[in-house]
């Protein structure tokens, strides 16, 4: 299903729209603690931008930006960021994900430390969700490249 579309309109519209979708997703992630949204929603919108790119511009251009191997690495990085911030709070003498204790390292007041800690956790969640969604998308839509098709078993 993911091959380059031969329609001019779809290709041009997708080309113009994809950077804006990515910036909007990053805005949703970064402003998650003021307005609706957060890590999960931002990650899903990021994955949707890659889906749009893959559907309109083909698999090659998508793989150049986010390959399966990169998706695996990025998802691990996301989980590591989430767990690492939690463990750091644990090491500094608080509970798990007790962001106020991060103020000792960052040299800010506990309130600001909480804000920064939530931001870091949300970035981690967004990376993990985006990578996993991309992996699911690739797994579903590139399986037909293999010679055997499920549909022959009707």
């Amino acid at each position, binding site marked *: 299903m993911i091959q380059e579309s031969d*329609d*001019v*309109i779809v*290709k*041009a*519209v997708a*080309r*113009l729209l*994809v*950077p*804006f979708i*990515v*910036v*909007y997703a*990053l*805005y949703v992630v*970064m*402003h998650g603690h003021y307005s609706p949204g957060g890590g999960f929603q931002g990650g899903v919108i990021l994955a949707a931008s890659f889906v749009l790119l893959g559907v309109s511009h083909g698999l090659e251009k998508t793989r150049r*930006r986010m390959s399966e191997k990169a998706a695996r690495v990025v998802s691990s990085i996301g989980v590591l960021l989430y767990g690492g911030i939690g463990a750091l709070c644990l090491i500094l003498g608080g509970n798990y994900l007790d962001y106020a204790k991060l103020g000792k390292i960052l040299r800010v007041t506990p309130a600001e430390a909480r804000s920064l800690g939530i931001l870091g956790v949300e970035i981690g969640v967004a990376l993990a969700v985006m990578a996993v969604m991309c992996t699911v998308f690739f797994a579903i839509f590139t399986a037909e490249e293999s010679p055997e098709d499920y549909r022959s078993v009707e």
Partner: protein
Amino acid sequence: MEVTLLLESTDNAFRVMERAREHAVGLLDTAVQFTAEQTRFRQEKRGQLLFTGTQKRKTQFQNIVGTTIILLAFWMLLSGKFDAFHLTLGVICCALTAYLFHDLLFANVRVGDMRVIAARFIAYIPWLIEQIILANIHVASLVLRRKMPIDPQIVKFKTKLETDISCVTLANSITLTPGTITMDIKDGVFYVHALSQKVANELNAGDMEDRVAHIFMEADHLYVEDVLDAARIYQTLRT
């Protein structure tokens, strides 16, 4: 007798050697010439490659900067927070996005006349809105009448627009206007479904295409190739 023979044969041998030497010298000369030419050619090519490489990197850099600026404007519109922390976040995010997607936003745009295009595009929008309102009234008067005097047809015309972005602008303008829908663009040929003869005539007049060509600074010309009769298709669909 033998001496003269010997002398002659040596003379012959010398002559052969002389000719061989001349040949060898000629060959060497051509070889040297070839190698010199080849090195010169290779150097030229390398210089050219270096030049195009730097040029490519330069356009890439320009693309990244331009994309960053546009995306930063979009970010500020969304965010509405102008303190240092959020602005830094925005710059980082936009630069990252621009680095990843620098070849999408400026795929084949001639850089330099962007401001003129933007100004002309903004001036085009009120005309389009007026056109949409007029077509709305026309289509509503057609549809709400008791007999519904519609005359659906597929108009096929060849456009003179060159870049994909101008084609898309024209196609979306046609689709936004009620009564006409762009069905397909194949190799510069538009297939447009028109609801009535009046709408099709307005399309064939080519006013909209001229205006779009004026926005993107391209040649403006339009001629009708063919008008397909869609009545039979509708008949078969209905039965």
